[in-house]
């Protein structure tokens, strides 16, 4: 089912959290809402779920206006960061609670619980209480609860944030497989860019209650709409270099900022034609290393193969892959669609 949000506004205690927000989620899509804490991404998810009142605008799920519908009537299932399992009920009753409320026949409940627990490998745990489960198992039960409801739209509110790194990677893979198997629409809130890049078919980057950019992970990473999106994705984050461009090719030049990802900087021995920079720090990452450079007072990060040959104090030539760089307006911080070849470094 597709989810369609028009001119949505949400106020909390009088202050607007979301205003005039539009978003279209296509049927079967895995949309990740990505942004720093307090950017309104959870609020947006709660508004879709019907857990908070909206001040203006409309929410449609599967073409039906559900702006004022009860959460249970929206064909949604939700998974929370704190798992939110019912502590006094065992796994089986946790998963079947919604169906029992709806008065579903016993045989049907049993069938759906059996199917969900098979998909999530919860069969041996059905009689246990949430307190007797590990974090990963708890979150699988929470996912099972949404599965049993046969939700058409799955909402995830930072579901992996409470898990340790290893489990997080594991469950991330399981979620991806689950999405492929079910083909249901999923909307996933996170502040973790790795989760966003790996899970999403499309990412919506949010800041201050506004969606900054929506696109495939590749698009958002390669062609960020503004400097916030550019800086939020990627680790280490994008290098920003002040300078100017001449849009007309020659004529008058205007101030601009060049954005280059660390992996698009190539390091050459000093003496080549490229601008020179001094190594200030080398961080070994195993497969590669992050080389921090000082280029005439400008700090740069470059990702290089882990050769171990870069030493602090070395002088190197820096070559930028301008075909893959972005140009931004220094005032509005918006992307300027120009080839970075037109860019000149201020010091030159």
């Amino acid at each position, binding site marked *: 089912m597709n989810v369609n949000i028009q001119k949505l506004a949400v106020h909390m205690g009088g202050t607007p959290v979301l205003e005039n927000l539009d978003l279209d989620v296509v049927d079967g899509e895995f949309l990740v809402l990505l942004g720093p804490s307090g950017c309104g991404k959870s609020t947006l998810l*709660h508004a879709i*779920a019907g*857990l908070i009142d909206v001040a203006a605008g409309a929410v449609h799920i599967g073409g039906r206006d559900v702006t004022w519908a*009860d*959460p*249970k009537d929206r064909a*949604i*299932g*939700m998974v*929370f*960061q*704190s798992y*939110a*399992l*019912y*502590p*006094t009920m065992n796994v089986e009753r946790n998963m079947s*609670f*919604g169906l029992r*409320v*709806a008065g579903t026949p016993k045989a049907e409940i049993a069938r759906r619980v059996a199917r969900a627990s098979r998909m999530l490998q919860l069969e041996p745990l059905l009689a246990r209480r949430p307190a007797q489960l590990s974090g990963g198992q708890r979150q699988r039960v*929470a996912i099972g*609860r949404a599965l049993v*409801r046969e939700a058409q739209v799955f909402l995830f*509110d930072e579901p992996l944030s409470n898990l340790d790194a290893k489990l997080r990677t594991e469950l991330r893979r399981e979620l991806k497989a689950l999405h492929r198997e079910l083909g249901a629409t999923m909307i996933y809130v996170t502040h973790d860019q790795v989760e966003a890049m790996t899970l999403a078919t499309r990412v919506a980057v949010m800041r201050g209650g506004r969606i900054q950019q929506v696109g495939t992970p590749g698009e958002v990473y390669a062609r960020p709409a503004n400097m916030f999106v550019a800086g939020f994705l990627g680790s280490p984050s994008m290098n920003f270099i002040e300078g100017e461009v001449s849009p007309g090719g020659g004529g008058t030049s205007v101030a601009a900022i060049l954005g280059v990802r660390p992996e698009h900087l190539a390091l050459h021995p000093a003496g080549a034609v490229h601008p020179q920079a001094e190594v200030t720090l080398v961080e070994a990452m195993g497969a590669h290393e992050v080389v921090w450079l000082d280029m005439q007072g400008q700090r740069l990060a470059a990702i290089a193969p882990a050769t171990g040959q870069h030493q602090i104090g070395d002088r190197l030539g820096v070559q930028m892959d301008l075909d893959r760089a972005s140009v931004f307006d220094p005032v509005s911080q918006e992307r300027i669609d120009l080839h970075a070849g037109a860019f000149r470094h201020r010091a030159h």
Partner: protein
Amino acid sequence: MTVATSSTVADGRDAPASCANAPVARKPARLPRPARIGLYVFLATAAIAFLLPLYVMVVTSIKPMEEIRLGNLFAWPVKLTLAPWAQAWTSACTGLECGGIRVGFMNSLAIVVPSTLLSILLGALNGYALSFWRPRGAQAFFVVLLTGAFIPYQVMLFPLIRALAALGLFGTLPGVVLIHTVFGMPVMTLLFRNYYASVPHELFMAARIDGGGFWRIFVQLMLPMSLPIIVVAVIMQVTAIWNDFLIGLVFAGHDWLPMTVQLNNIINTTTGERLYNVNMAATLLTSLVPLTVYLVSGRWFVRGIAAGAVKG
């Protein structure tokens, strides 16, 4: 335990020389001897001050009157007798009626059981609604309710008498139960509101998505989770209502006087000689219920308070 473990770990490791003098958690230093002795003397004195009256009461209640007349207050009974207990229970006189204190016991039971159940149920419901549903004006309502807890009963006594009389409930069992329930509301609401405040809000949201309504979430989810705090509430309400004198005296009317009021009447009724042993037995009988509640549920009480204080 933690202290011991951490210091073992610190000792066991090959600490670099620079860290050898780093502060390591140590056992707190013991008090110097004289101070310790003083502490124990004080504690013992306090314990005697509390236990001595109890001892005198118990001893007196199992002595025949002949021994009491000798005036040896602390003496162990020469001839043990349970007759005063039987008399206090079945035939002690309050004014002209001589039915013993068991009439009051039954009355108190009839008052305590419904009052406790009702006030806890309504308090839990209030706390639940205030914590999770947050109706418009909930905060103001809560402040007003709490203010009610600080107004002395005496101020409300006369208006309440008039109100109950108008309702036809003055001097009846439902009347007393109603008053106890209403007066229990501020503290019960506060207790449950704070307990539910420690329950993650996401749990409530999950239940809403599963289609739970106001009552279903309360009955099937929140009440079963509230067992520790319900035990605390039961202890508070049972002891408070059982020990009540004022409300029982004013509102219960002649037929439903609680045990405390009856005890007072028994002790103030004298036909010739003052029966100290019977009075003591009646007093002990009256205090038996709160005492039992504490003994049976002490463990739960502590657990409930701790559960509320740390997390839900």
